């Protein structure tokens, strides 16, 4: 089948996007709409003495100004994470108000919403809102937040610790450590990043005839509808319709409901007109949820031959000022499911302290916890190889969980179902010509440059929420319509799901219509995140399609005056098994709409339940080769090789695109990106000039290939591909840079590897000098 699973089919969604006719939220304009702007706190921490809105209210064009006092009827933004510590105490989750209540806790926190006739008028008036606070000391640094004498952000709680999460067995670790021939320690920074999808957040809220309609970029409209209806407005689900047209990138942040979207709906109801908000880029840096931000100390115990006996991983994780929807889940359970990653570790102890600081809340960012977990193990492995004098590939070989041991239950009780870690690594080493590195290093040396090569192996546990729903209908003209709860914001589901249906039904690709992102049609769905769409949505789509074929078989049997058991189906035609008669899928669909067959038509809704606690395990080996100019500190990525096992590849074109994108985001984090708050809590990286994202000129060609090891637990054999690149690239790059710098005696360096840092490292200068 030309357009079926496994084919590099071009994307169905592209024609509108390449002609400039895609409809993103900022392209939506409703008649008589008003514009909203947000007045934000310039203070990192303070109790609110007063908010004076008089001048703003009197400004030209202003229709209304709202502060917390005006929206008392609305709930706060909920946190979905359910976590308990070992003593059974729940994670402390304070209320996160839409507009600051009583205190401001980070720079950029919304304080007032101003609605005016034009965007300019609204923004000008927002600057006239006068916020007066009694300053409180800002808590920015993680170690400072954990200190006993720290200023407490949420007074009622008494400390900044939201939860101390623990997993594994500390006593077993102590015993392993005592018996070890070698101990290897690393101290790591997983830097804070700004996810920065290129489309700034926007929202158009419209309340009419008792119904709220929200146009809003998202990773799944259904989830947004639930949060708005239940947690914020306390209204029935049906009274809120969420429409996500085109969405300009997600990467985790669009799984969150941000306050501005809810405020447009509130204002629209109060004012009787549609209300539009469109944030600018600086606002996005201040108020889009951030990612990562961990400090980790890890300790690996090994025997004489370099086999791991145990590991201890202790992390301080920054939640920001409040819990995002997934806040404390990310550094604990999300990453914790694959703690220890692909290695056999007889003993393990994992401790994470989640802390509040006066910074923007942290949420999921591509990989959400898994890249952090992989970074720790990959740095440990390289450091162990260095200290023990064993090859970096060899030490991994000695410690990989072998395929023969799978399913392998790890220390989190998660069963890793499949993977060929050693074979996948070997493929990557071969494609990267790992063996030929020395020759290339000498050539670089001749030019005065330091060359290094590094490896990063990752595993993910993906799939997200265990349920997903799809509805497939065959129309009387033989075309198919599919509605899913996952949400494509660039992944190309429209294409991938059509490929699956095209396979299932044997019908033409262009006869399949795809509906997503509008709660008027999508009645259930977990959205997209955690690389879950192909495995969750894909299977729901396939099973719904198969259900339709079965329904049709019964109808066809009657039309052919036979038994369903005698009717076969192939390529949109039902036939009797002796080929004496046949009826087309279209005819069956038409018949199914008549009263004789109940009039319901040929349609099936399937809710796929993967089973709670089960995941798939995309994994892969990434190799980066770099050259550093010691005179300038500039790092050049000479070569990048990715071999991923994402299970069955549905569309190689789309899968490779996911790898490219993930790798470049991972390289961005490793090389350039860093959200910086100064010690007073002011954000220093508020534009693309201060926050460096990778451009085309600094990024390498990525050699992408796959080692398809089918997932044994789902019939498509898929595992997911969205996040692997972001997991594999940071350790591959940092390990390569440290390999290059080894001749200069450098054994540790923290992301991002800016030229200044590399230059200092290469020239024996202190890395700390500029800090603060």
């Amino acid at each position: 089948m030309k357009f079926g699973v496994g084919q590099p089919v071009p994307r169905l969604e592209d024609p509108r996007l390449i002609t400039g006719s895609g409809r993103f939220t900022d392209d939506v304009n409703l008649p008589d709409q008003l514009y909203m702007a947000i007045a934000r706190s310039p203070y990192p921490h303070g109790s609110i003495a007063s908010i004076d809105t008089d001048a703003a209210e009197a400004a030209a064009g202003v229709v209304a100004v709202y502060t917390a006092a005006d929206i008392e009827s609305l709930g706060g933004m909920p946190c979905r994470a359910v976590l308990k510590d070992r003593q059974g105490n729940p994670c402390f989750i304070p209320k996160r108000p839409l507009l600051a209540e009583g205190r401001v806790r980070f720079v950029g926190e919304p304080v007032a919403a101003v609605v005016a006739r034009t965007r300019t008028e609204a923004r000008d008036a927002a600057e006239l809102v006068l916020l007066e606070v009694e300053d409180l000391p800002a808590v920015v640094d993680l170690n400072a937040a954990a200190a006993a004498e720290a200023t407490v952000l949420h007074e009622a709680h008494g400390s900044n610790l939201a939860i101390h999460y623990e997993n594994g067995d500390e006593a077993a670790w102590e015993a392993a450590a005592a018996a070890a021939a070698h101990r290897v320690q690393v101290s790591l920074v997983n830097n804070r990043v700004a996810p920065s999808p290129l489309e700034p957040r926007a929202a158009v809220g419209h309340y009419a005839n008792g119904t709220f309609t929200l146009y809003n970029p998202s990773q799944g409209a259904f989830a947004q509808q639930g949060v708005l209806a239940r947690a914020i407005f306390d209204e029935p689900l049906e009274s809120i319709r969420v429409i996500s047209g085109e969405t300009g990138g997600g990467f985790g942040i669009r799984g969150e409901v941000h306050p501005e979207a809810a405020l447009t709906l509130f204002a629209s109801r109060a004012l009787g007109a549609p209300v539009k908000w469109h944030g600018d880029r600086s606002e996005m840096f201040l108020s889009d949820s951030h990612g990562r931000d961990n400090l980790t100390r890890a300790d690996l115990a090994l025997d004489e031959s370099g086999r791991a006996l145990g590991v201890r991983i202790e992390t301080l994780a920054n939640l920001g000022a409040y819990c995002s929807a997934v806040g404390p889940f990310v550094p604990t359970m999300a990453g914790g499911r694959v703690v220890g990653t692909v290695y056999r570790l007889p003993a393990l102890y994992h401790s994470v302290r989640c802390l509040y600081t006066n910074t923007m809340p942290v949420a999921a960012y591509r990989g959400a916890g898994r890249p952090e977990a992989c970074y720790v193990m990959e740095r440990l492995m390289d450091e162990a190889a260095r200290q023990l004098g064993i090859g970096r590939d060899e030490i991994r070989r000695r410690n990989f969980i072998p395929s023969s041991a799978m399913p392998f239950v790890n220390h989190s009780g998660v069963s890793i179902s499949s993977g060929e870690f050693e074979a996948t690594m070997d493929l990557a080493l071969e494609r990267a010509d790992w063996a030929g590195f020395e020759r290339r290093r000498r050539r670089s040396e001749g030019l005065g440059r330091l060359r290094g090569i590094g490896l990063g192996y990752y595993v993910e546990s993906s799939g997200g929420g265990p349920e997903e729903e799809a509805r497939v209908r065959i129309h009387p003209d033989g075309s198919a319509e599919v509605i899913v709860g996952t949400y494509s914001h660039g992944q190309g589901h429209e294409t991938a799901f059509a490929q699956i249906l095209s396979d299932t039904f044997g019908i033409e690709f262009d006869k399949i219509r795809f509906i997503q992102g509008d709660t008027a049609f999508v009645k259930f769905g977990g959205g997209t995140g955690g690389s879950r769409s192909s495995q969750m949505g894909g299977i729901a789509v396939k099973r719904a399609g198969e259900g339709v074929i079965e329904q049709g078989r019964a109808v066809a049997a009657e039309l052919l005056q036979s038994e369903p058991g005698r009717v076969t189906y192939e390529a949109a035609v039902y036939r009797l098994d002796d080929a004496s008669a046949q009826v087309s899928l279209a005819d069956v669909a038409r018949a199914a709409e008549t009263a004789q067959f109940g009039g319901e038509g040929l349609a099936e809704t399937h809710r796929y339940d993967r089973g709670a606690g089960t995941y798939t395990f995309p994994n892969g080996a990434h190799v980066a080769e770099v050259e550093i100019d010691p005179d300038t500190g500039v790092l050049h990525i000479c070569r990048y090789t990715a071999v991923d096992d994402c299970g069955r590849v549905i569309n190689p074109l789309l899968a490779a695109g996911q790898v490219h994108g993930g790798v470049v985001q991972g390289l961005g984090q490793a090389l350039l990106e860093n959200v910086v708050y100064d010690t007073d809590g002011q954000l220093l990286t508020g534009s693309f000039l201060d926050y460096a994202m990778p451009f085309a000129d600094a990024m390498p060609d990525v050699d992408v290939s796959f080692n398809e090891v089918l997932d044994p637990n789902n019939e498509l054999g898929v595992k997911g591909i969205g996040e692997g690149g972001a997991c594999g690239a940071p350790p591959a790059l940092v390990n390569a840079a440290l390999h290059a710098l080894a001749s200069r005696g450098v054994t540790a360096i923290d992301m991002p590897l800016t030229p200044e840092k590399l230059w200092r490292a290469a020239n024996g200068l202190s890395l700390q000098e500029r800090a603060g």
Partner: protein
Amino acid sequence: MNGVQVSTTVNGDVEEFVCHPGETLLEVLRNRLGLTGAKEGCGTGDCGACSVIVDGQLVCSCLVLGAEVEGRKVATVEGLADGNRLHPLQDKFLEHAALQCGICTPGFLVAAKALLDDNPDPTEEEIRYALAGNLCRCTGYDKIVRAVDAAAAELRKSSKKKASGRKK
């Protein structure tokens, strides 16, 4: 409103509009002329999502005032295709799946058009350098670079054909 009356050419059509003196070309295109292909990714000239061509010159329309295009020729992504016939760049973007979310795509297409108008046979390095004013958060640039390279080859083939056709 203290409007400025502007007369200009957009994608070959004469356009007249009145705008505020402080209004950017990006705002004019999107809000007054209904051409929403150019996007606002930053508003500060750092991302290229708003790229258009003014008198043959690639510019960030968020940094140009609407009033400045008086008497000039503006080309946007909407004018790239010839009726229903896609421009080779658009064809190659499709074929190579050079876009994911698509928000950056109009800017890349316009920037690539400006490059190929100037340099019909760019090296990979030249392509990457020429596109280094455009941010894409989704694709990692790989497929974009390949698509532009393929489009350049395609355009060279067809211009050669045209040239040899003329000779006969």
